[in-house]
Every structure is written in structure tokens, then in C-alpha cells.
């Protein structure tokens, strides 16, 4: 707890330093302090995860009336440790990212401030503390998102969407938690948890639905995801990484804390709803990620997809626990939390990579990139590790958690409830289809973005980014590899967190080791052996190629362009683009994506048979946004326009409003 508090204090100090120091020292000072803060918090959180002890703190000083309650339990500590890890990398990365143009005071101050609030939320142990931390997080992230608004007007649009979504969500959470605190006789989480069984079913269901609305919008669940593909691309990359790697996690944290811990599991339909949200989000996010041509937009949709997978796990765990299958529930929840941690690592890494590319080339459009592998080899390698992780290839962390999740879901079919079985089945199907779609999306991102020949002058002139950015990416890539090769090291901590996620806890089924060994389910996998086998295979293949006797003409190498199929004179215009790569998928999923296409053929004046120019236009908008949000926004602005007609500039009309109000009040009084 002490280390944690020191860390939070240091992060606050970093924000002050970022705001106060002169321009030259601002960024390094703030980054060094926030890195130190993350390390301190990481030490505190890992201690809690390793020991399983919960420690709390109450002070009446900071907030009037209620005071501040903080508590570090294994569930909160897991989220805090994840955030601190991504935050540490983001602090290193931000030094290089901001170095080309001195960032403003707000930009430097808001990154550590945002980080501090992210670290604060999972430790909040009362309704008041939680809401204050939650709203501070919304506010600081909004300001951090807005830092580029002078150069890019789209940022303002994104910020408006984000602000609206996050505030509607926060209002729903506030309503739910206040209702809960009112009926549970106190506002600290400990008091509420002790009243767990005594709430009526309609009341606890109302609280759950209200808070789910808010938390799901933070977690980016479809149909409340619309802010993600706008805000994540427009934010500066360290901020995008924190938003996608840490902030969306807190939506999941909120669902677990309120639904699992404070309300104690409750009804099984709650969890089926969550799993259904997860299935829809996973599918929708994966399809959009496969169709996107903007790197960061692709990553944002992939966040929707991965959060969907986590929600499937949580929903399945809750449904299994409500059906009495506590052992399996514990396993599935553990897998979901593992995937969440892994997602934070590889998504942070990928956002850093996209930021590095944007930093070097000035564009996020995959159709204008290419050929970066030769120009930015380190960035390409690190982005590649992230892409392979998210594509769940064995030996990297995405594989470990998806394997666990799939094992858990498949073994859950033994449950006695048909609804639970259907939920699990849908989850397995979603996992399968998103696996394929994610692979497509990242083959596209890596293949089109980094390999081949540059498609624009900017990509041609790209240079490798500086050591601080590479260090930030390297840290997260290291995490991906370690958790991928020896996933067993993280399991005890995850098991404690999962046990804290549901009231009463779930017995562990894992044999502790380096790999994953499900003792009771007869399932085990040792990724380290897989990796060793893979490496051995590579060495053998290399050796065979080098040493085997070959015919003379084959021994003399013939040089040609990479990926040119042996053709000479390969040009960038002959390469496949991101748009064309995604085209077949777009046709298959035309009903979901509803692409907006336009083909315009211009003929010469002399003859209608001779084509002068062909222009092809395509744009994939979010169908959910178009169907569900546009009409609401239209109605609101219609109401706004109507209201604008009321004040027409006539002094008499304004006076008449006042007079009418006065007379009306007097009439009511009389």
C-alpha cells in the first residue's frame, strides 16, 4: 500500500512538473517521474498479487463529507499492475514521441495525470471515491485526447463523441451505485458487499443493468463502442496506448467489481447478456478491423474485438458460477483476465508501433505506407511481435490466453443449463471466427504497411525512430514474449485476482508450472516446448538449405524485388493495397459493413467508348453509428434548431419570457 501511495503521489508530481517546468525540461522531467511512479505502483500491486493480502486506507481529509477510501485487493491489483506496465512503457515512449516538436504544457501534464487516475480507479473502495476517480479519469483522458486539436480539427469531433459517451455512461454508473449504496446502508464497498444477499432481485438487477450500461460503454462493447474508432486514432499515441491498453480494461473491472463482487454474482441472465454483448463486439470489431485501412482505426476496432473476447469469458464465467460450476467458472474468468492483461501488452505495443510509423511518415493510411521493413527494421520487428501476439500464434501471449479461454468454454458444455450451453457455444464460435479475421487484419497491417515497396514519398523517406520509443515498445514486446513462452509464471497472480472477482472465490484447477496444465480437465500445453521445437525446426531448415548439395545454376543467386514473384521492374502501383486486400472480406460481410462505394468513369469528349479516367471511391462507415446514433443526433440537433428560433433578437420577447415566468410563479403561489 505504501509503495502504491508513493507511486500515485509521484504521478501527481509528474503532472505538476509537466505543467510547470520550462519547455526544455518539461517532457523528460514528467516522463522520468511518471516512469518512477509506475515502478512504485507496480511493486505495490505485485506484492498484493503475490501475497494475496488486501490492505485498505481511509482518510477523511481529501473529500468533504465522505472522505477517501482506498483498498488494494488482488482483483484491483491485477488491473493496477497492468496499467502500470503499459504506463511505464508509455512514459519512456513519450520522450521520443514528443521530441520532434515540444508538446504543450497541457499535453505533458495530462499524460501523467491520466495515468494517475487510471491507477486510482481500481483502488477506490467506496462509491464516492470511485466516482471521483472515474470522472477524473474521463476528464484527464479527454484533455489528453484534445492535445492535438489545433492541428487536426477531427480531434474535436472525436472528443465530442468521447465526451458524450463517457458522460452518459458515468451518469448511468452514478445512478446505479447511488441506488445500491442507498439500499445497502452505506457507501463503502465493504458495507455494500456485506449486504450482498439482502437486496431484492429487481433492485439488484436494476443496479446491474445501469452500471453495465456505463461500464460496457467504457469497455467499448457494441453498440456502445462508437467513441473508440474515433478517439483512439486521434489521440497522441502514448494516450491511445493507455486508452486502449488500460482504460477500456477498467470497464471490465467495473463489471466484475459491481456484478461479481458487490452484488455477488446474482442472476444468470446478467452474465448471458454480457456474453452476448461480447459475441457481438468480438465479431463486429474483428470484421471492421479486417476492413479498415487506417492503422489506428484498425487497432481501435481490434480493441473492440478483444474486449468482446474478454466479455465472453466474463459472461461465461458468471453463467457457470450461477449454475454452480465454480471450478470451471474460475478457470474461464482466469482466462478472460489473462487475455485482458495480454491485450494490454500487445495493443499498447501495436499503438506504439503505429505511432512510430506516424511519427516517421506523417500518415496512418496503410495505402500510403509500405517498404518500412528496410527503413525501420526495429519498429517492424516489434510491431511484428505485437501482430503475431494478437493473431494468437503459439509462443506468444495471445495464444496462451485464447487457448485457456477456449479450453474453459469447451469443457463448460458439461453444464446442466441449455442457456449456458448456448452461450458457451456462441462464445466458441466467436472465438473461432475472430481468430481468422484478426489474422487477416494483421497480415494486412504488417504486410501492406511494412513490407513491399513504399507507396508514397513520405514512406520512402521514413527513418527509424529514436531509442526511447524503441525502448517503450521493447518493454511491452518483452512482456508479450515472456507471457507467451512461460505463461505459468503469471497464473498464481491471475488465480488470486479471479478468486476475488466473484464473491466466495473459485478453487484453482491449475498445476503451477511454466506452461499451462489443467490438472482436472486433462488439458495441458507447454508453449516453451513449442517454441523450442519451432526454433529447432528453423535451424534445421536453414542448415538443410545451406548445406545440401545443389545444382550449379541454383547456387548462383538471382536477385529480384522482394514479393515481386520474380518479376523485374516491380513498382509500388503493382502491389496489393490495404483496400484491395480487404475487398473480398468486405464483399462477404457486406451486410455488416455496408460499404459506401462509388465508381466514376470519365469519357473523352470525342467518344463515349474511350475512357479518360476512372475514379473509385470507397468508404466504410460504422453501421451501428449510422443506424442507432445518427437519428438520435439528428433529433437532438432538430430540437436545437427549433430552440434557436425562440430567441429572435427581440428585446421584448426576452422581457416577455421573464414577465411570463414571474406571473406564472405568482399564479401558482396565489
Amino acid at each position, binding site marked *: 500500500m505504501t509503495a502504491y501511495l508513493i507511486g500515485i503521489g509521484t504521478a501527481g508530481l509528474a503532472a505538476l512538473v509537466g505543467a510547470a517546468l520550462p519547455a526544455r525540461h518539461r517532457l523528460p522531467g514528467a516522463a522520468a517521474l511518471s516512469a518512477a511512479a509506475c515502478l512504485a505502483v507496480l511493486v505495490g500491486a505485485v506484492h498484493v498479487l503475490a501475497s494475496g493480502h488486501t490492505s485498505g486506507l481511509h482518510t477523511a481529509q481529501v473529500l468533504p463529507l465522505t472522505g477517501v477510501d482506498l483498498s488494494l485487493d488482488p482483483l484491483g491489483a491485477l488491473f493496477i499492475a497492468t496499467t502500470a506496465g503499459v504506463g511505464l512503457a508509455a512514459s519512456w515512449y513519450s520522450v521520443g514521441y514528443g521530441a520532434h516538436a515540444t508538446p504543450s504544457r497541457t499535453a505533458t501534464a495530462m499524460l501523467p495525470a491520466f495515468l494517475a487516475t487510471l491507477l486510482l480507479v481500481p483502488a477506490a473502495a467506496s462509491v464516492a471515491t470511485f466516482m471521483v476517480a472515474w470522472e477524473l479519469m474521463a476528464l484527464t483522458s479527454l484533455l489528453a485526447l484534445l492535445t492535438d486539436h489545433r492541428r487536426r480539427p477531427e480531434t474535436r469531433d472525436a472528443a465530442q463523441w468521447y465526451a458524450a459517451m463517457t458522460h452518459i455512461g458515468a451518469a448511468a454508473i452514478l445512478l446505479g451505485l447511488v441506488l445500491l449504496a442507498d439500499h445497502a446502508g452505506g457507501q463503502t464497498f465493504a458495507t455494500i458487499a456485506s449486504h450482498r444477499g439482502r437486496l431484492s432481485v429487481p433492485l439488484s438487477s436494476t443496479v446491474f443493468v445501469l452500471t453495465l450500461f456505463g461500464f460496457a460503454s467504457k469497455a467499448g462493447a457494441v453498440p456502445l463502442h462508437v467513441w473508440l474508432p474515433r478517439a483512439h486514432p486521434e489521440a497522441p499515441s502514448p494516450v491511445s496506448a493507455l486508452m486502449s491498453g488500460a482504460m477500456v480494461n477498467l470497464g471490465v473491472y467495473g463489471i466484475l467489481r459491481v456484478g461479481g463482487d458487490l452484488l455477488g454474482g446474482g442472476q444468470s441472465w446478467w452474465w448471458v447478456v454480457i456474453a452476448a454483448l461480447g459475441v457481438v463486439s468480438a465479431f463486429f470489431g474483428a470484421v471492421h478491423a479486417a476492413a479498415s485501412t487506417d492503422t489506428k482505426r484498425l487497432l481501435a476496432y481490434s480493441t473492440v474485438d478483444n474486449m468482446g473476447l474478454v466479455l465472453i469469458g466474463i459472461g461465461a464465467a458468471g453463467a457457470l458460477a450461477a449454475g454452480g460450476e465454480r471450478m470451471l467458472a474460475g478457470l474461464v474468468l482466469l482466462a478472460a483476465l489473462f487475455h485482458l492483461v495480454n491485450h494490454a501488452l500487445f495493443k499498447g505495443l501495436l499503438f506504439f508501433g503505429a505511432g512510430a510509423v506516424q511519427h516517421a511518415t506523417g500518415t496512418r493510411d496503410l495505402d500510403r505506407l509500405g517498404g518500412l521493413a528496410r527503413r525501420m527494421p526495429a519498429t517492424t520487428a516489434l510491431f511484428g511481435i505485437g501482430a503475431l501476439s494478437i493473431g494468437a500464434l503459439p509462443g506468444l501471449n495471445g495464444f496462451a490466453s485464447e487457448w485457456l479461454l477456449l479450453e474453459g468454454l469447451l469443457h463448460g458444455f458439461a453444464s446442466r443449463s441449455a442457456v449456458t450451453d448456448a452461450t458457451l457455444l456462441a462464445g466458441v464460435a466467436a472465438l473461432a471466427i475472430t481468430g481468422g479475421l484478426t489474422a487477416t487484419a494483421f497480415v494486412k497491417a504488417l504486410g501492406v504497411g511494412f513490407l513491399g515497396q513504399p507507396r508514397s514519398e513520405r514512406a520512402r523517406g521514413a527513418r527509424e525512430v529514436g531509442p526511447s520509443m524503441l525502448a517503450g515498445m521493447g518493454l511491452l514486446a518483452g512482456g508479450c514474449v515472456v507471457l507467451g513462452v512461460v505463461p505459468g509464471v503469471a497464473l498464481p497472480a491471475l488465480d488470486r485476482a479471479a478468486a476475488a472477482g466473484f464473491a466466495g472465490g473459485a478453487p484453482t484447477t491449475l498445476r503451477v508450472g511454466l506452461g499451462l496444465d489443467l490438472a482436472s480437465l486433462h488439458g495441458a500445453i507447454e508453449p516453451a516446448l513449442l517454441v523450442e521445437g519451432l526454433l529447432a525446426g528453423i535451424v534445421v531448415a536453414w542448415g538443410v538449405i545451406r548445406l545440401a548439395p545443389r545444382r550449379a545454376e541454383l547456387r548462383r543467386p538471382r536477385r529480384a524485388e522482394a514479393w515481386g514473384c520474380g518479376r523485374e521492374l516491380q513498382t509500388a502501383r503493382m502491389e496489393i493495397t490495404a483496400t484491395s486486400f480487404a475487398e473480398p472480406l468486405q464483399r462477404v460481410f457486406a451486410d455488416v459493413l455496408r460499404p459506401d462505394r462509388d465508381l466514376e468513369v470519365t469519357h473523352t469528349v470525342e467518344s463515349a467508348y474511350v475512357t479518360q479516367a476512372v475514379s473509385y471511391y470507397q468508404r466504410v462507415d460504422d453501421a451501428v453509428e449510422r443506424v442507432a446514433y445518427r437519428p438520435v443526433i439528428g433529433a437532438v440537433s432538430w430540437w436545437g434548431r427549433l430552440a434557436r428560433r425562440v*430567441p*429572435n*433578437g*427581440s*428585446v*421584448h420577447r426576452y*422581457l*416577455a419570457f*421573464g*414577465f411570463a415566468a*414571474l*406571473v406564472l410563479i*405568482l*399564479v401558482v*403561489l*396565489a
Partner: protein
Amino acid sequence: MISGSALDGVELAAGVVLAGAILALWRKDLRSLTSVLALQGIALAALAAILAATGGDVGLGVVAGVVLVTKGLVIPGLLARVVRADPGSRETAPLVNVPASLVAAAGLVILSYLVAGQLTALMPDPLTRLAPLGLATVLVGFFVLVTRRKAVSQIVGLLLVDNGVALLAFLLTAGVPLLVELGTSLDVLLVVVVLQVLATTMRARFGHVDLDQLRELHD
């Protein structure tokens, strides 16, 4: 406790204030409006003087003097200068015509009696029973503000509201502290001065002082 001829005097003065407000609604000639304001100011001053004399309150006596100077002489005088600069100006087309305005005023007076009944019930005494007159003056002044077009009529409406508030203050609290009365009087004086400057500028720039024609200035 006030009684006898002093009470008669107070009742008369309060009646004159309300009658002045209704007169302002009736008259279209802007010059007569300034006389109405002067009359109201003198009546208010007389009321304050009577209250000061019966209560032996020196501060209230000074307030009466201030009221007489500001509301009775200076403000109407300034307004008269504005009107004189634009001879023949009349409130030709009020938004609500005069007969309808008078009917509305009758309604407002009834409303203020209904509302002020609750105030009077708190402390039934001869002075608080006159409170409806003050409230009615406020409402009629507001009505003038809403329905009259000329800038001068607007300021007259504002002054009527102010006079109504002053009357209420004298009746309900047995006189306002000297400092407060000085503050409000000077405020109102300032408003009138600003209006005078504004009206002169408006006439110079637009050739009229009709507020409704300023509508194009809005955003």
C-alpha cells in the same frame, strides 16, 4: 404604531404610486410619462417622510430626501431632456393596445392582491395591508417593459419596477437602510444616464429609438 391622519397620508401616497403606474400605461405621450414618474417620486418621498416623522427615524428622513432628489427631480428631469430632444415622439403602436393594457393591468392588480394576501397574513398591520399596491406597481412596470416599443418607455417601465420595489420596501420593512437606498438610487440614476447617451447615439445612427427594429443586430 401608525394611525390616524398619518396612515391616511401613507395610504394616499401608496395609491398615487400605483395610479401613476397605470397612468403610464394609459398615456401615449412620452412627455406626460416623465411627469408621471416625477409624481411617483414625490409620493414615495412623502411616504418615507411620513414614516420617518411618526417613527422619529432620522436615517429614514434622509432617505426621503434622497428619494425626493433622485426619483422626484433628477431622473424625471433627465428623461424629459431625452424626450425634448425628439419632439412629438409618442408611443404610437404599443405591442398591446391601450384598452387591452388597462384590462391586463386590472388582472395584474387582482393577482398581486391574491399573492400578497399570504404576505399580509404573516403580520397583519395597516402598512403590510398596502403591500399589494407595491407588488402591483412592480407587475405593471414589468408589463410596460414588455409591451412598449420606445427606448424611453422601456426605461420608464424599469423605473416603475424600481419604484414598486421601493414602495414594497418602505411598507414591509418600515424603511430601508440609508446605504441600500443610496445604492439603488444611484444605480437607477446611472441607468438613466446610460439610456440618455444610448438614445442620443441611437437616434444619431439609426434615426429612431424603436427597440424592435434592432432585431437584426442579433447573432
